[in-house]
């Protein structure tokens, strides 16, 4: 009796575990900002749970292939994206964001 009970318990635990995996664990986003150096400047990456989600080698929103001129500006823009992602806001960088970021720096 005890044996069959414990066998059933094992099966039950196994099934519950299987189902929770199938249904996905609760939304646990671990976001991380990283800057990186390119030939002509800097860019940033946003990783979610260690996987690169946003790879940003150029300045977003403006017509350019230019990267950020220095690590500080790349980090500032990346931080803005990270902050908005964490607040579940629209995280697209606007032209005004870029103007503001570069004005602040000067």
């Amino acid at each position, binding site marked *: 009796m005890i044996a069959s009970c414990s066998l059933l318990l094992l099966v039950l635990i196994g*099934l519950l575990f299987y189902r929770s995996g199938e249904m996905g664990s609760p939304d646990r986003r671990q976001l991380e900002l990283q800057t990186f150096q390119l030939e002509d400047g800097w860019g940033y990456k946003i990783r979610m749970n260690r996987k690169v989600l946003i790879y940003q080698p150029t300045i977003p929103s403006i*017509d350019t292939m230019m990267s950020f001129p220095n690590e500080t500006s790349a980090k500032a823009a990346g931080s803005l994206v990270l902050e908005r992602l964490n607040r*579940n806001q*629209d995280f697209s*960088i606007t*032209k005004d964001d870029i103007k503001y970021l570069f004005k602040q720096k000067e």
Partner: protein
Amino acid sequence: MKQKRLLAVMLFLLLAVLPSCKSDDDDDLIGKWYRVSDFDGLARYAASSFTIGNKGYLVCGYDNKKCLSDLWVYDIEMDSWTQLASFPGTARHTAVAFTVNEKGYLGTGYDKENYLKDFWEYNPAGNTWEQKADFPGSARYGAVGFGVAGKGYIGCGYDGNYLKDFYSFNPSTNAWEQIISIGGSKRTGATSFVINDEAYVCCGLNNGDYVNDFWKYNPSTGLWTQLRDISDTSDDDYDDDYNIVRTNGVAFVIDGAAYIACGESGSVRSDTWKYSPATDLWENVAKFKGTARTSTASFSSGERGFIVSGKSSTLCFDDIWELHPYEYDDDDY
């Protein structure tokens, strides 16, 4: 006694858990949908998209509050996103976008006040936008467009009336030319796809009717050919189960076959249909695995197909899904 009760409780729990583990057995349609990115954020619908090589571009759309103008590119190989130069025209939704000769084009649409007819080119080599000659038809939204054999095409849509006029754009001369209108119904919210240098237009809405006539455009002859209807209109049995008509659906092409998914017809849809041009026949494949939705965008590299964004009633989606057309899904969903 205690043990018996415990056993009974466990059996009950086991029975409660078991049914959800069962996979559907009889209705297994080919195809398996994968959620490929956990990107929670680009929530929008009625966005526009075009694909250049292995990169999918997502631009404009509506997020329930405002019209959008940001441009993002999804790297299909890397499964990562990069924000690019924002669309410089009026922020809008329900615009048309397509690719011609490795450049993206976007035109028409709606900014919540005005129907639009401006037309723009995006060059990925310089990450730049340039305004081109205005679309010569009436300003409109819900048009359908495609790039094929070096030219771009826009037609149909809604300007207060349902439309069926069609125009071609030549990028080398920056000039538009009216072509023969699509045959059959006027329509808005139609779906297009291109296979082997021929363009196909189906679905859409006309005055409350989900249109069932289906057309192919051959750019070298400049002629439209009517294909078999996409609803059960024939006496033969190939179309007995056709349930394809819808509006604001989306298509992508994998290995020379087109797939149409999502959209709406009274309610939002998730059923997916595969079209084979060689036989002019449709086959029901695995339904979209995300929440049923409409007004989505798609990326179509010719080898891989993705569905991104969209809406269901007032909810905007931000997830991105890929169809693996030759696999089966054991999940019951």
